[in-house]
């Protein structure tokens, strides 16, 4: 149960699910979304210089 809740939370934060899990519902929802965007943008900015081809592009 705990693992599936955790999975659902990650899926929501990653954009896969539309409905916020109970853990994030309410006032935390927007804050969590902002943190995810910020974190993602920071990580992309930090690591984007080493970009290589997607493996499945040549298929």
């Amino acid at each position, binding site marked *: 149960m705990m693992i599936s809740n955790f999975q659902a939370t990650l899926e929501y934060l990653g954009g*896969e699910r539309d409905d916020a899990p109970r853990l994030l519902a309410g006032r935390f929802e927007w804050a969590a979304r902002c943190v995810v965007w910020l974190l993602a943008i920071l990580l992309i900015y930090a690591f984007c210089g080493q970009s290589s081809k997607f493996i499945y592009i040549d298929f």
Partner: protein
Amino acid sequence: MIFNTFSYYFLFLAPAAVLFRVVSPRLRPWVIVLFGSLFFIFFAYGMAGLWGAACLLIFLWESLVSRLYRPTSRWCLVGIVQSVVLLGIFKYWNFFTGLFFLHAANPFRWQGAFLPLGISFFTFEFYHYAWDRRAGRTEAGTLGEYLAFILFFPTMVAGPIKRYQDFLPKLRQEPTEWSGDWERGITRILTGLTKKFAVADLLTAWTDHLNARDIVVADKRVLVMWLLAYGIKIYADFSGYSDIAIGSARLFGIKVPENFDWPYGRRNIQRFWQCWHISLTRWLIDYVYIPLGGSRVSTPRIYANIIAVMLISGLWHGAGLNFIVWGLWHGLLLAGHRLWRQLRGEPNTHPVAVFCSRALTFVLVNAGWAFFCMNLPTAMLFYRRLVFG
């Protein structure tokens, strides 16, 4: 590159997604057709020059032939054969002709061979449409709708592999929720890019060592780490790619099929394949496994079908003996799992047994990646070094 370039987002995705929402419903498919064609020409030219860009004609030819498809019609068979023949010529010509001249120069070698952008994926969509039209499982749609289906650029190059009967209602529906769709879509794209840049590309420093020169001198424990890194890399890379494709489609208000559902950590190899590259697994079941008789034939035939499907899956992933061995490995694992289930009945639900089966599945799947990421002699060298030192 494609999804990790600015050109994709600012020349194609953003303008197409905005235009798609502001034009009249009648013009929406043609927005996708226009941008899909430009997308194909732009990136195919970058990868394979003029001939690569000219492969846009394959889409146009296929769409014209598709207008002849009717339920039970022979034209559908023509469509199926032509899609497979095209894939065979572009992807497998040098491989199969080379098999006849193993110890000599191949006189039939196509020197200027190239792979049209996304051919392995769009072939499956052509094939699916022809097959389902023949079976009467899908309506024809208009020319614009069919072209929009095959030229829908977020999924054109590497899936997820769509189905026309799922795509059509989404194309026709009014995209209403701008803010919701864009927020979810952009979040998904950011997630995909993060997986690609911060996980997959970072692991390249380890996976680049999976070559004969480095394997010979490496410590055994390091070999295991390199292979494990490849297992994580290919998951982050392809699931990241799928995230971007699905998120991009969402900007149009179109939901396309999911491709991954936490595949690592599944209890057995069958569950793994139900959660790894889901759209491919479903395609193989519907268009290869079931037509071969599926599970409604004799027991030996069932096992033969399973192995045949995975061999085809392996060959589809690449024209090389290593991919055939990779497919065979997964075929044998699936057949072994089915046999085990027949002999032992329902799986043990004790937590220790569950943990062990998850760990075993993870190890077996990762062991197979050696044949995916290295050619056959190098993969054999890898295992020789791992087992015998």
